[in-house]
């Protein structure tokens, strides 16, 4: 799954949105997602990708696509990534 698709799933789940609403160009503020919501969103991203996001979230993330770009940047900096669609919660 692409970063976009994963992010869209999380947004749909956490913010009661439809797939149409979370198009790449959709504005975060237009979707009712403010800075505190974004922080909570990042917890979900951390869980999904087994990331630890240490830096402050940039204040210029305005669209869904901006967040995709930010996540991809974090994944690239981390190095060899866990496959995005691996089942991180599998036991054994």
């Amino acid at each position: 799954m692409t970063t976009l698709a994963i992010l869209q799933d999380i947004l749909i789940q956490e913010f009661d949105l439809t797939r149409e609403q979370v198009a790449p160009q959709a504005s975060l503020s237009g979707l009712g997602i403010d800075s505190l919501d974004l922080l909570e969103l990042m917890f979900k991203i951390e869980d999904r990708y087994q990331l630890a996001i240490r830096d402050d979230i940039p204040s210029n993330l305005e669209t869904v696509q901006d967040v995709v770009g930010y996540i991809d940047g974090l994944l690239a900096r981390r190095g060899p990534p866990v496959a995005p669609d691996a089942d991180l919660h599998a036991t054994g």
Partner: protein
Amino acid sequence: MRRVAITGMGVLAPLGADVAELFTSLLAGRSGIRRLTQSAFEALRSPIAADVDFDGGAHFETAQLRMLDRVSQLAMIAVAQAVADARLDLSNADLDRCGVSVGTGSGGAATSDEGYHTIYAERSDRVKPYTVLGSMHNAPASWIGIEYGLRGPNLTYSTACSSSAVAIGEAARRIAYGEVDVMLAGGAEAPLCFGVLRAWEAMRTMASVDAHDPAASCRPFSAQRTGLVLGEGAAFLVLEDWQRAAARGAPIHAELRGYGLTTDATHITRPSVAGQAAAMRAALRSAHLDAAAIGYVNAHGTATLQNDPVETQAIKEVFGTHCTALPVSSTKSMHGHLLGAAGALEFVIAVGSLERGVLPPTMHLEAPDPACDLDYVAGRARSGVALAAVMSNSFAFGGTNAVLIACAPGFDPA
């Protein structure tokens, strides 16, 4: 000084999800106290409480729930009931002259508890961003203000067990002084999380679980009483300038005629007969009523060893010989102690009793403490009682005493 009308009431309480259900339960002597069966509470000495069957997910969207502690959720539901009950149409109101007044003792306790758990138990830095906003004591009042667009005074009072009686009295005073016309006033408390229950347990003032029937564990005025039982819930009133209410043909439950506010200033927990008596006298004075006008007192009646005889003595000092004809009951025997929301719930019960001509009982009172010898309406409610004025007492740790008096709409003792 203007007169204050009570035009709407709403509750979300251990005994009912609305005022009608609350009164059905009260008059049947039903207890909302139960054993807490969730494994999280196993370690408590007395795992009992009066909880509310309420799932926020059924009332609020996911995105909103993120920001709302249970205390704010309960408050908003109860306020909505009160506003609907009052048939309050705010679309034509001067919203700068409408405000909110809330009492709470613990604020967003569960949010706070969860945050501390994350920090200290999980040793994680992933504290939820909404932790401060969810736990702050003024959150319920602020969300109510936002919901209804009310730009007048928005205040939160925290005086422990008298918080919402204070919130109601202070709101009424603002209306009486002409500063505002409408106030949504009441209280909310959602303290039933492990940390809070543990902390209360540490004071050794909580009731033991009754061996025969956990629901009977709260026994105000009884020789067998063992302490208080915590509860959760919210209760709200719509208070309105009387002229405004009459002009719009509002349903008027009662007049909020008296408010007495005193402080013990003696001890951080032990109640004072003088302080309580002074509060009741102050309420009577503010209502321009003689003690003999009061037909029912909803007591503070926590069932702690300290409160009940002190309150009994204070009532005797204020009411004198009228005590022989004055029913006094503690409905905490059924709904538990809602702490910051207790004053509001009990005042709603007093007003509702006034309207219905009923006396809710003090349940689980078989053998009274010898120092407690008033008519506590023991064991069974009474109906068909002619009531013109009722009193509700709230006395608190820290010593802030608040007493409210409500009168029937047509009552004029002059």
